[in-house]
């Protein structure tokens, strides 16, 4: 059915101007203006846009939609569908052998897409982190304002929205795309072009969100609640477009992952032999495919309210703001587990390697992941306990929320039992995994206060809830993210990261993370609300402590960045093919992995956690199939 054909080498002019990031930016800007003037033709002139308050929502929407279409056309995403419309046959691969240019264009090699994701998401993660630093700078003083209140709210919104939007793909984007095909013994994702599309959509979305500052920002934080959103500046349109594009990207990413895992597993790789990381990706993808469309639909309704004068969320005109809140959290709570589940999976995947023991309770761990996936649909109204919902609904959602701690506990039990009597190696990835246990435990325990109606009434909307979700998301996901980086980047790039710098990064990040967020529980209990630029004088010491700790936390992340650039660009110490003596299949391949992964599709005969049972397999020669049979 498929064949590997030789690639014609394009001439230099073609490589410079033909379908790459440069042409994408040029056509993206052109598309933006085309959309802008198109809207002007439809609804009348608005050339004084930047000076006049008479903003035109349709102009903003059509301009950005035009920009996205132009951007994708510039990357070459329209070539294939246009060819198909003319009857040319389907194809699978593009630009897999074109040097460094692959990283700046539509490339269908899943490993290139994984690395694109790593740097792309890293860039926006860095910007989101800078916003956090500005927020903490503002909160150094209780009343003195470095930024106007509206700007402060936009900073809070930019930070939250960027982190919650981008980090949904924080693990599946780089590590899922790179590793899942290899781990299941395949050579590619099921739909390689869609895989590339999910990445570039995310980059377009990030640019749209950042340019909200040209349109007045948005005051709603990451949740985009109405009626505030309906009354907000056109910067709100950027929020809507950002999250809608993220939702589309998430849906396609999840769909591609599930199709790949279900249909492309190598012979012998039964469901009970699947690496636990792949189970985590599968659970997360299920949530993405089902929850993200609800987000897209909700934001579409909001976009119609702002442009076509519908009234989905306008209480006085037949709509309801509760409709928005319900629909948003139908997506929003599974979203929390879209962020958390990959963290669980990474920790469970790495623990056996560094404890030199088989994963304890494999089936229990899978049940935990699937249980969380299922229960995450039944808890969304705990976000609305204090919104005035029917009081009779509260007990059910309180109990269902507390019930979710049971499958979550499975993960903890499996992790702890894997560590029990293990020969633990305290390498950098393992340190991050161990920190995950501590952080996520605090995040989970503080979550009980928020799921419990009486205590939620006190703590809702305060810094307590802010501290809680930073412990779960930053303490859970981001620490696991760094564990994954230190563990897999040597395999992905062929270069080793500096271990000493890695350990300094870990310890500073762990200490200053806790020093930043633990006092916020106290600030919340003492009544400091989220998203408010001023606070009582008596809370200044706590806030100053938190701000200084946050700056140190930021510095520790800069240290990581230094390590990454230093190790990959200057030190360039070649990584061993299997530096951790892992039994997982990706470490049986050369570093970096060949374009086609395997010469012959491998045959699996066991799961990858047989530590203590036989010596680690010998590294296979370049291009050879993995040998685990």
């Amino acid at each position, binding site marked *: *059915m*498929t*064949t*590997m*054909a*030789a*690639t014609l080498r394009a001439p230099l002019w073609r490589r410079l101007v*033909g379908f790459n990031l440069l042409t994408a930016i040029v056509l993206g800007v052109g598309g933006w203006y085309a959309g802008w003037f198109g809207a002007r033709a439809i609804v009348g002139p608005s050339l004084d846009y930047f000076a006049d308050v008479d903003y035109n929502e349709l102009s903003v929407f059509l301009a950005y939609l035009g920009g996205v279409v132009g951007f994708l056309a510039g990357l070459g995403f329209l*070539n*294939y569908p246009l*060819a198909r*419309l003319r*009857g040319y*046959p389907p*194809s*699978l*691969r593009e630009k*897999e*052998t074109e*040097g460094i240019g692959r*990283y700046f264009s539509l490339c269908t090699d899943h490993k290139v897409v994984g690395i694109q994701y790593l740097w792309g998401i890293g860039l926006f993660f860095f910007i989101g982190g800078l916003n956090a630093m500005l927020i903490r700078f503002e909160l150094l003083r209780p009343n003195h304002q470095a930024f106007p209140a509206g700007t402060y709210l936009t900073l809070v919104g930019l930070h939250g929205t960027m982190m919650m939007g981008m980090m949904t793909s924080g693990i599946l984007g780089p590590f899922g795309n790179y590793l899942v095909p290899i781990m299941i013994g395949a050579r590619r994702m099921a*739909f390689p072009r869609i895989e590339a599309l999910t990445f570039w959509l995310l980059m377009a979305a990030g640019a749209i969100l950042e340019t909200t500052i040209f349109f007045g920002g948005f005051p709603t934080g990451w949740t985009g609640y109405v009626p505030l959103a309906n009354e907000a500046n056109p910067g709100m349109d950027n929020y809507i477009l950002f999250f809608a594009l993220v939702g589309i990207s998430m849906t396609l990413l999840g*769909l*591609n992952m*599930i*199709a*790949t895992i279900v*249909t*492309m597993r190598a012979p012998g790789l039964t469901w009970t032999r699947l690496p636990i990381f792949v189970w985590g990706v599968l659970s997360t993808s299920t949530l993405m*495919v*089902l*929850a993200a*469309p*609800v987000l897209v*639909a*909700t934001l579409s*309704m909001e976009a119609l309210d702002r442009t*076509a004068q519908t*009234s*989905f969320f306008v*209480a*006085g*005109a*037949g*709509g*309801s703001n509760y409709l928005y809140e*319900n*629909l948003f959290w139908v997506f929003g709570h599974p979203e929390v587990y879209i962020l958390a589940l990959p963290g669980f999976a990474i920790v469970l995947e790495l623990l056996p390697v560094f404890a030199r023991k088989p994963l304890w309770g494999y089936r229990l761990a899978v049940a935990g992941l699937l249980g969380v996936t299922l229960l995450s649909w039944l808890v969304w109204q705990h976000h609305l306990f204090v919104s005035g919902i029917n009081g009779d609904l509260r007990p059910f959602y309180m109990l269902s929320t507390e019930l979710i701690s049971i499958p979550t506990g499975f993960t903890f039990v499996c992790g702890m039992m894997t560590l029990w009597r293990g020969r633990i190696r305290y390498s950098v990835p393992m340190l991050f995994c161990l920190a995950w246990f501590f952080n996520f435990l605090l995040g989970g325990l503080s979550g009980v206060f928020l799921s419990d109606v009486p205590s939620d009434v006190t703590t809702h909307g305060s810094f307590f809830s802010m501290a809680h979700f930073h412990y779960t998301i930053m303490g859970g996901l981001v620490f696991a993210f760094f564990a994954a980086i230190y563990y897999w980047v040597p395999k992905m*790039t*062929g270069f080793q990261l500096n271990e000493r710098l890695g350990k300094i990064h870990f310890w500073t990040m762990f200490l200053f993370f806790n020093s930043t967020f633990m006092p916020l529980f106290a600030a919340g209990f003492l009544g400091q609300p989220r998203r408010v630029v001023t606070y009582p004088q008596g809370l200044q010491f706590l806030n100053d402590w938190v701000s200084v700790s946050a700056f140190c936390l930021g510095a520790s992340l800069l240290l990581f960045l230094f390590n990454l650039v230093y190790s990959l660009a200057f030190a360039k110490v070649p*990584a*061993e093919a299997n530096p951790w003596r892992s039994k997982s299949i990706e470490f049986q391949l*050369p*570093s*970096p*992995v*060949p374009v*086609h992964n395997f010469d*012959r599709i491998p045959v699996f005969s066991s799961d990858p956690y047989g530590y203590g049972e036989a010596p680690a397999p010998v590294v296979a020669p370049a*291009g050879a199939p993995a040998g685990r049979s």
Partner: protein
Amino acid sequence: MSSAPLAQESTDYAVVEGEPPELLGRNLVAAAHLLASATAFFFLSFVFAYFYLRSLASGAMWKPRGVDASIAWGTVVTACVAVSAILVQRGLADHRAGRRPEWRRKGLAALLLGAAALVLQAIAWTQQSFGPSDGGFASVYFGWTAFLFLFVLGTMVWLEMVLATSYRYRGFAAGTTEVAPGEASGDPYRSGADIRDPVSLIRAELEALSFYWAFLAGIVVLTWIVLYLL
């Protein structure tokens, strides 16, 4: 061990074993089912909005006087979509039985009916006695049908692609034709490895498409029941 930067960029394709021939078809069918799941959750949001706003009837603005969607337009649009989906199903049966010309004729008719449904829906919007700002029902009506319009449009584009490939390779049987490098994208500089036997993929793509189109037609029927009959 290698010190090459980032992912390797060259390979010896001559030694690489091909994929199982049925893999691409399985991928497409799996994707069609997943896409249907995502589509269902997208439109469930509108179903939820309909019943939520209807039960609240906030400010007596759910369905003010004069707001009533024309059942005639809705019925015609729904009928076009339903018949189109049935024709694709019948076309698939023809393709399975080796009656390729019959499949192409039915596929073309299905495409025309789908396009007619889109045109009729666009006309229907202009013929209603109310606009998007006339209360809760009007919002749901215009929002729901607008996005359904986009989904139907996307599916018709997909059908056109399958049909166009069928027509381009109408003289070939599966396994008898080969595609030159670059032909798949219509651009000789953009090929890495293409599928050489496009004819054998038409069936797989048609299986996936017919399932999804039937599913979407089911959503159109549900829309008709909720927006026009309830």
